[in-house]
């Protein structure tokens, strides 16, 4: 099986990118490869858009949480499987495995992306930050602290994806309104029903990350 390298799809923000719900609304949107190509932010693939890799394993280097990791992976391996199965970074979860639920959200060059919807080879040359990279030396990230305080988690399976999406959202929206939170986190789904806590946690984290009061 040969796959062309494609640009990553962005997760998380609803306004600026195509999300599940937008997709459902827009019946005319065609999906051919299972990957939705959005804005042209991501860097060009290193070997040009027509390059073909595989089908056998190819050497790649993934830069994850500031450290390079040399891997030998088939081109069909997703970024999510590379992180979980080859680097034992299991914070990002495999749930829908097709870019809908956000449980696998990681940050790629400051943008949240669905790691299940990206091939590992597409992530080469990018800075990848996973949930494991957000807590340093055992210190919880302020978003994590707010999630604990506002009980924004039950089973916790969607939580790492939500925390990463919230972090990326707050980086862009340091003073979010309630409505912006609902818009911005629309790309992550929870089954236990923790959204009430999540809404409060995001607003609280916005405050604590600035060391002051939020506008919301």
């Amino acid at each position, binding site marked *: 099986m040969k796959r062309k390298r494609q640009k990553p799809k962005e997760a998380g923000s609803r306004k600026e990118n195509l999300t*599940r*719900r937008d*997709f*459902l609304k827009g019946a005319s949107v065609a999906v051919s490869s299972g990957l939705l190509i959005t804005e042209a932010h991501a860097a060009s693939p290193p070997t040009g858009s027509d390059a073909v890799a595989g089908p056998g394993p190819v050497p790649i280097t993934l830069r994850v949480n500031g450290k390079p990791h040399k891997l030998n992976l*088939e081109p*069909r*391996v997703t970024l999510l*499987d590379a992180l*979980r*199965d080859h680097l*034992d970074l*299991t*914070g990002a*979860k*495999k*749930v*829908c*495995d*097709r870019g*809908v*639920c956000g*449980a696998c959200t990681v940050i790629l060059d400051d943008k949240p992306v669905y790691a299940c919807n990206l091939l590992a080879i597409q992530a080469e040359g990018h800075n990848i930050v*996973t*949930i*494991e990279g*957000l807590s340093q030396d055992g210190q*919880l*990230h302020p978003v*994590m*602290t707010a*999630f*604990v*305080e506002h*009980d*924004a*988690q*039950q*089973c*916790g*399976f*969607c*939580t*790492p994806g939500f*925390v990463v999406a919230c972090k990326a959202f707050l980086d862009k929206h340091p003073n979010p309104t309630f409505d912006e*939170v*609902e*818009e911005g986190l*629309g790309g*992550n*789904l*929870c*089954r*236990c*029903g*923790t*959204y*009430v*806590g*999540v*809404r409060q946690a995001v607003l609280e984290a916005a405050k604590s990350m600035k060391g002051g009061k939020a506008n919301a």
Partner: protein
Amino acid sequence: MPKCKYDWPETGERKLIGKRISRIDGPIKASGKAKYTFDVNLPGMLYGKILRSPYAHAKITALDTSAAESTPGVKAVRKIQDVGKEIQWAGDEIVAVAAESEDIARDALDKIKIEFEQLPHLVHEEDLSKAGDHAKAAGTEKSGDPDKAFSDPDVVISEGYYGMAVITHCCLESHGSVAEWTGPDTLKTYFSTQNVSGIPGEVGEALRQAGIDVKNNNIETICQYIGGGFGSKFGADRWGIENARLAKIAGRPVKLLLERDMDLEVAGARPSSYAKIKVAAKKDGTIVAWQSDSWGTGGPAGATMPPIPYVFTGIPNKVTRHTSVSTNTGPARAWRAPTHPQAALLTWAALDDLAAKLNMDPLEFFSKNADLAGERADVYRQELRKAAELIDWKKNWRPRGHQTPSSIKRGLGISLHTWGGRGHNSNCNVNIHPDGSVEVNLGSQDLGTGTRTVINIVAAETLGLPLEAIAVNIGDSKYPNDGASGGSTTVGGVSASTRRGCVDALDQLFAAVAPGLGVPADQLIAAAGKIQAKADSSKSLTWKQACAKLGVKTIQVTGKHPGPCSLGSSGVGGVEMADVSVDTETGIVKINKMVCAQDCGLIIDIKTAESQCYGALIMGISYALFEQKIMDDATGRMLNPNMEFYKLAGIGDIGELVVHMMTGPGYDERGTIGLGEPPVISPGAAISNAVANALGVRVPTLPITPEKVLAALEKGGGA
């Protein structure tokens, strides 16, 4: 009445119980470090996958796995069902494969040659006339004289059709396990399970039947964290047994977690329920008669009748007739509060339509008839009042069909519910060590409800210690046997066994330090990290000093439930109300606000208790508006086995949610009662009634999709 030894501390004495405490495993979950079954990676681990039937009803006529077996990287292949077997639902397991990677396992499945003889299937049940011999009469019950009651010229009668579709559990962590044979006859299994203590026995029995000699006590099951269960993860499942067998054949650990499509198609289903219902009340609103003809499916085994009429069981004249429809769809599993959401919708929708026909405010109508709920009538009246206040019913409610010029119509709706929630059998091993450390060990599990936190609170409260002084160990079958977490039975079980174990352990500590303190053991108390004389706080030892008196001997005690002293009970009420806006041009229903007034006896942790209710409201909004397992007549397959078309509510779909826990006198005395099920029962009915109030017509079935709203408007009239 003499105070019983293990009784919960009095209200004023509680330091932790009933307070607002963050779940103790919050940090490890929020930081992504919690290891779920899906996250277990073992050295040399293989990946398991299963070939499944593409047909809903078929006989296997040919099966050749040789090409899969010779695929490089494939380490084990097992035929689960062979030639001649009749398959009853699409997605049923046929061959299991273990390989070096998921992709190789998938490639191997593609190489399996299999042929089927297709047989006729039925995957739809809503139209009972098309069910043929799949429909079986499942009982009639009658009390009073319904015929006479309905023929009374002075009663008002309402008739309608109501129902809700089959939905799936959609746990975010799919079902599955990791199996590792650590010796020729010792098996370590990691299961995503609600039943840590029960899995070894089930797996052992199945393996022995398959000729693999392994004793139950050589099987360990571990589940530290589980990504959702909701009733669908009690058993090991055939794929869990097969995974242990693959690992045995391969001689290496195997991870087999279901893919999302199969998790939705075969690993979870809540039975549907449909009914034609006739109800009657006197002109003053007194309900006098009920008649229902219900049917539903939960797959091959059909579906039992929901408990209707629900809550108002005291309706004097009633007749219920039920038909069970077997379908060629993935089998039903217990779904949070089995049969109750269905019962609530059928009952409250029918009675809400009756209230509308009587031109009565449903709040007044339900309050007036609350005595039909029997012994909990007063609880319901209190909760109706509280919920009405929180949603500002008096101000916001308008009679049905109230005309506003806007195309957006607003409506309010009510639902009531009930559940048991008595604590299950539980065993808690409490260890107090001479160095002052304390462990409480239970073969229980935390589904995300806060079980770990509840155990910690009860132990810390009882021993007079801070939360962090106690290590809570659960999620491993090596700990004392505990019940499965289902039916809201966990909190009652683990809180009581922990309380009893800690009281007894403390007694032993008191006995050890009493002589040195010169105070009789029964005059000692544990509080604020000290052991001290009740009457003289100067006679005290710190916890550490006290434990040091144990010398080299660790106190080991087992606390049990059931046991002496009543620490919990059974039976709760609960009322929920919904405020919705419906766009009559698009058919879209928007939740403005939902409120929940819920009792559950003595609440151990108010924070996680409220989270259960918030979560239940959201899950309820999801099944009321979005969720349905959509089956295809032609292929017999599920059309939406994925998360873009099997829709869950998102963060922007929920509106404002308000939860009020009923606590204090009259509630706390009931002791602990489970909470997982009750609040998820009512949202469907409350939302359906709110939509009917907004539109003036009933959208008869859940989910209330835009398409159904527009159809109901076009049809007009009553239900």
